[in-house]
């Protein structure tokens, strides 16, 4: 059980590192997906350990939200690229131009 939680925390922290360090909007988004997946693995492991089923159901809803988020985030990436000609998030420093 603890082994699973250690793996979950390692992957989650790598994802957090990616979100903070990287400047490419797409890679930041992929690191975010990594954090989602770490949380999913935690849900399934704990739910397996406590003989529950609610954690597994929750994973399905997390996947649904991640799919919706992917569509919106990549739409924003395309709009941002069209506006600025790059996906460097340091260029995202104004609300409207």
């Amino acid at each position: 059980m603890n082994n699973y939680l250690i793996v979950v925390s390692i992957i989650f922290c790598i994802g957090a590192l990616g979100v903070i360090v990287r400047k490419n909007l797409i890679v930041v988004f992929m690191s975010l997906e990594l954090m989602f997946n770490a949380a999913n693995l935690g849900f399934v492991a704990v739910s397996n350990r406590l003989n529950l089923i609610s954690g597994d159901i929750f994973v399905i809803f997390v996947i649904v939200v991640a799919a919706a988020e992917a569509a919106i985030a990549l739409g924003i990436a395309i709009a941002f690229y069209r506006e600025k000609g790059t996906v460097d998030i340091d260029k995202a420093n104004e609300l409207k131009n």
Partner: protein
Amino acid sequence: MEALFYVFSFIAIFSALMVVTMRNPLTSALYLVLCFFALAGFYVILDMQFLAAMQILVYAGAIMVLVVLVIMLLNISRIKNIGSDLHQKIIGGLISLILFAEIVIYIINGAEKKPTGIFTGALIKKIGNTQIIGEFLFTEYMLPFEIASILLFVAIIGAYLFAKKKY
């Protein structure tokens, strides 16, 4: 099972590191697919084959195809030369190390809870994990299920509005 756990955790952690460190976004995307497959392996070990199939179909299939499509659409040679500053790396590494230490301290100090539910591995194997998930999804979790459909509908409209040429 123990050996499989270590194999999958090695693959998952290695590919997660590669996602964060690779310069080329397309390489990161492919390593992310590898990471999703390793996590699907974990779900199989934990007696949730349905979730493993969902993970591969929805994450490694649908979402990653969308990401790769957008990377290709955005002219990969122009977007791969975005480096990060040294101070950003140091601060990010510190923050994620502190976060990791906090989680590990919490895991080590926490008392392990006794199993409370009735769904043991043997029972899940007897009924079938897909049937249990379907039963719960359409009875106890009916309202979240319906809200999820509304969320997906809104996401379709939102993605169209964002990617449209003129606002």
